[in-house]
């Protein structure tokens, strides 16, 4: 009874947040710097979304991929090539992109987990695969080589996922981010979600209890890669330009996992909280310091990552939770629950 009520209340909170974000472009459109703020919010949502996708395998199942740029790039390249060569609208292309990324995710997951790669070894293989994708696409002229691909601007054509201004893109990524968070919240109470946590906490015990770790981890990677591939299509449409390092490189790969880790691994809201706090700071730093400081965001991210690993390995939500516990709030507060412990 209590639990249902709480869930209902949490759902209302989520709906209110969504409504607030959905109405946000209205006041912003009157502000002179509205487009710029909208851009930052789009980035927050994009990284919240990508990091939420990463969190399914990385946070819940505890397998840290350092190369999710592979799926981002696959998604971006597939839908862009379909658009450029066949004129296929990205609205359709994104599903093919997602499917392609999911297929890659299945292959990577199955092969790696079949051979029992874990921890640092899994991380290294995922980096190597993403790096291999960088050099592979760089050498395929058909895919634009090192120069990459430009999504031809056809004017304001919502049917081609091209919009004048940023509002159209904003609503797309808002819906994607909201759905990804809803999915994780749902996962949190599903059998599949419990299996993921069981595999993370003790693979052998899970195995002994009839959970097939290979199957579970591979499935998690497929879901995660599928979502990341969809995000790749959005990435390409929003930036209108992609090149191998931009999507497959270590920049996106590291950023994708960063927000989940800093926000709180294996939590519903961790990735969003991490992105919400860090992306604006990094973007303002970039804007303030200008071109002379091209590395500012990644420099900041690196420093924050070090500090978090040294002093709060459970991320921001981990700190919030332990503070809440000390204050005396029993149970799990509305700040989002940790999936385990």
């Amino acid at each position, binding site marked *: 009874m209590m639990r249902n009520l709480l869930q209902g209340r949490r759902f209302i909170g989520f709906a209110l947040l969504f409504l607030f974000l959905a109405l946000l472009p209205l006041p912003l459109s009157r502000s002179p710097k509205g487009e710029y703020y909208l851009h930052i919010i789009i980035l927050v949502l994009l990284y919240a979304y990508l990091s939420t996708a990463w969190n399914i395998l990385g946070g819940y199942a505890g397998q840290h991929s350092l190369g999710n740029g592979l799926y981002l790039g696959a998604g971006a390249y597939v839908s862009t090539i379909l658009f450029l060569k066949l004129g296929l609208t990205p609205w359709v292309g994104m599903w093919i992109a997602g499917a392609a990324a999911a297929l890659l995710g299945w292959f990577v997951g199955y092969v790696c987990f079949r051979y029992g*790669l874990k921890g640092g070894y899994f*991380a*290294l293989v995922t980096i190597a695969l993403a790096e291999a994708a960088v050099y592979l696409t760089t*050498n395929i002229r058909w895919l634009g080589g090192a120069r990459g691909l430009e999504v031809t601007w056809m004017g304001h054509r919502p049917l081609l996922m091209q919009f004048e201004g940023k509002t159209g893109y904003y609503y797309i990524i808002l819906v994607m981010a909201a759905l990804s968070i809803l999915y994780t919240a749902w996962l949190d109470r599903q059998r599949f979600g419990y299996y993921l946590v069981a595999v993370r906490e003790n693979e052998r015990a899970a195995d002994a209890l009839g959970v097939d770790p290979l199957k579970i981890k591979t499935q998690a990677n497929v879901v995660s890669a599928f979502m990341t591939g969809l995000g790749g299509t959005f990435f390409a449409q929003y930036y209108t330009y992609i090149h191998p390092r931009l999507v497959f490189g270590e920049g996106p790969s590291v950023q994708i996992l960063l927000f989940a880790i800093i926000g709180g691994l294996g939590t519903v809201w961790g990735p969003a909280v991490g992105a919400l706090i860090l992306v604006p700071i990094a973007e303002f730093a970039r804007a303030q310091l200008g071109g002379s400081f091209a*590395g500012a965001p*990644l420099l900041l991210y690196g420093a924050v990552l070090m500090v978090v*690993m040294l002093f709060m*390995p459970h991320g921001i939500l981990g700190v919030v939770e332990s503070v809440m516990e000390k204050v005396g709030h029993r149970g799990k507060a509305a700040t989002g629950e940790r999936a385990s412990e």
Partner: protein
Amino acid sequence: MSITLSFPLLAQAFVSGIMLGGVFALIAIGLTLIWGVMGIINFAHGEFLMVGMYIAYFLAARTGLDPYFTILVTVPALFLIGAGIFRVNIQPVLKDPVMNQILLTVGLMLVLQNLALVLFTATPLSLDNPYNKMIFNVGPVVIPLSNLLGFVGSLLGVAILWWFLRYTDMGRAIRAASQNREAATLMGIDVRRTYLVAFGIGSACVGLAASLMIPFYYVAPLVGAFLGLVAFIVVILGGMGNVLGALVGGLIIGLTETMGAAILPGSLSRVLTFAIFILVLLFRPQGIFGRRQA
């Protein structure tokens, strides 16, 4: 794309690959020492090399110092940098989960790369020096003196390290601590100090490599990103903590890089390098010479 294969080209690629492989081995041995002794996978290892290369570059370019004399600065400097970073960043997380340690060094990697980007911009720098222009002709093969010295210097470095680990008290302590931390502590070995020294020496290896490379290799903020991955590949090939394995692994990857570049168009040889890496990780994660551990 026309691919022309000729004996002189392949012979040149072979010799260049061996030379490059020696340096790769030295870099990788620094990494494998740290990894093997304390189980820390240092993702910033390539960035330490980058730092060393900038030190060597600016010392040689600004003061006119012979690039090989920069060894006297880069080796101690990298030892201190490594030991300092160990003390401040690594030691506190020694007992944390492996992924936390990895992420910490990934953070360090990002900081060093982007700090270099801010300080030196992305433009690659190459040191103008006589060693690069002195050339030996052996049959159809051209060997610049700088590459030869890089190879010989790396082998010397590896030999010294091997001797150090084998015959000095500190070296024995490091090996003991890597085999069994508790037993080493019981034998009166200060494991923490041993780790500190091992981390310093592992970093000093890339200091030496930096000075040996700067006469023939460019330096840029991201130079360590690829060379660091190469070091990982070599370590996995040779087996973690295996000095001789790393030497063979270094030669294999050096040859893959140069022979691949001679045979495949563009930078596809890199794809080959990563393919070897992935296959070895999947099928022989203990390395070519390693024994499977229970």
